[in-house]
């Protein structure tokens, strides 16, 4: 489990995160929400060790992150960045790269790695895409492939930076459903989300960030009832109860 303790991070001359304490619990989808530039993406990158901290601690199963070799971190944390370059390779090959942390030089992929790729693609419902070039896939299909890659990486924690951006509503819901299923399997899923209604609907907990600090951390119920969301985001939410649970909307 990842624990952030009084984490500070940022860029030279520009601190972004101040005193963040959070834990990413297995079996739970944690939505990170907040206005643009509040440090959501920075939070994920610092939690993964991609961005050096300027203070505080990131503990991975109780061990400070900097004491662990990069490979071991990669076996425990998967990270899906918001934007990435898509090389001209097949979807199957892309997912196979998720097995990289388990190889030693000279990195020949083994049969079990290929098996894992097959299972991961099947799990996200993208088996048919394995031999298709990545560049030919739609945004939603590509996101599924990236999820399969994270799955093939077989980590306890999966960090996703705005996985639903640029997707149509159907695909957004599909990605969120996959995230819930990942959590049900006992993984900790952390997602940066812009759509508050989607975040409150699908997450187990949500962290509202504002100016580099956690303004409120709680269940969707708590965030909905609190005042912070309205103050920080400048919108008012409403909700209706359905058979599948609460559905939120912007007033």
């Amino acid at each position: 489990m990842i624990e952030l303790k009084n984490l500070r991070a940022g860029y030279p001359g520009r601190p972004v995160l101040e005193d963040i304490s959070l834990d990413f619990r297995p079996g739970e989808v944690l939505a990170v929400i907040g206005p643009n530039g509040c440090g959501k993406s920075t939070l994920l990158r610092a939690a993964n060790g991609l961005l050096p901290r300027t203070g505080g601690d990131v503990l991975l199963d109780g061990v400070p992150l900097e004491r662990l070799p990069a490979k071991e971190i990669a076996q425990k944390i998967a990270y899906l960045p918001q934007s990435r370059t898509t090389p001209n390779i097949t979807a199957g090959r892309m997912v196979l790269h998720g097995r990289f942390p388990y190889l030693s030089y000279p990195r020949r992929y083994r049969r079990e790695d290929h098996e894992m790729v097959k299972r991961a693609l099947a799990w996200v419902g993208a088996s048919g895409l394995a031999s298709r070039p990545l560049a030919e896939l739609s945004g939603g299909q590509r996101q599924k492939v990236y999820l399969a890659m994270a799955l093939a990486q077989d980590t306890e924690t999966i960090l996703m930076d705005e996985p639903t951006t640029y997707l149509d509503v159907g695909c957004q819901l599909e990605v969120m459903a996959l995230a819930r299923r990942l959590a049900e399997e006992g993984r900790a899923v952390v997602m940066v989300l812009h759509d508050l209604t989607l975040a409150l609907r699908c997450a187990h907990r949500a962290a509202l960030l504002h100016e580099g600090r956690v303004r409120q951390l709680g269940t969707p119920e708590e965030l909905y009832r609190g005042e912070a969301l309205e103050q920080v985001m400048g919108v008012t939410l409403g909700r209706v109860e359905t058979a599948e649970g609460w559905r939120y909307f912007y007033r």
Partner: protein
Amino acid sequence: MSSLRTSSVGNKGRAGLIALLAGLLALSGVASLAFGAVSIPPGEVIAALLGRGSGTTASIVLYARLPRLCGCLLAGAALACAGVIIQGVLNNPLAAPNVIGVNSGAGLATALCCALAPGAVRWTPLAAFLGALVGVLLVLFIAERAGAARITLVLAGVAMSSMFGAGIDAVVTFVPDALSGYTDFRVGGVKNLSMARLAPAFWVILIALLIALSLSNELDLLLLGRETAQSLGLPAKWLRLALLMVAAALAGAAVSFAGLLGFVGLLVPHIMRRLLGEDSFPLLLSSALGGGLLLTVCDLASRLIFAPFELPLGVVLSLTGGPFFIWLLLKQRRGGGGL
């Protein structure tokens, strides 16, 4: 490299293409030994290669054409693979050893080496490697500083190329004998080579190619972007450095004997990427074969077009490669791509 969205072929197609390239390379190699100012029948070529030939024809094959052929193969393979690596590491399809100042850095170091220690031909590959390395490290430094914006990198490379080029000119002005056949060096060519001169470069290129092939998975990961690569446990910073050093060794070794043969490093990786997709292992392998093939064919053409007069190899290469490359770009544009 999202710009190069062409369909890639399956494993079988790839193996077939690589076999085809190898076959063409073998054919052009034989042709390169057999044709020139004097035509030599294939039978005599083989006899000469096996050490059973005699007389002038055997001498022509062994001492004039064979070193030339080997020079083409080595320089072509090295520059094309250096292109693949540099484009992959910098994630920039515009980068190539000649574009970003690696070749001219190696050229300057070679010129300096020849000017300061005229007898030390043996050391030119080392000097060229160091020159290429300086070029590559400067580019990496600029890339990190400028946030690796594609066009910034290329512009910085153009600036460095012209600085290094001015350096070569300065050295040649002060020590006119430094680069015997200066024009040949500037244009690039494989005339007047000997096996002894090729030997050090051969070992450097062979070792660098093997290292590059063994790091092909890592190169694949770098193509996913630095952050993704790092999040998969790849020490991206060190790996970029290591791969660029390999590229510098390849480009430097090629420049040390073949001069500033520009285009191979840009043209061949682009063609192969279109044909095979971006998996690094087949891409490196096919680019090595393709680079050797391209130079061998161009060298043969340079000897035959105005026989018995010869055009410099670099001239033929640019005159045929340039239009082809432009055609490729236009075709890509129509296909909805574009750089």
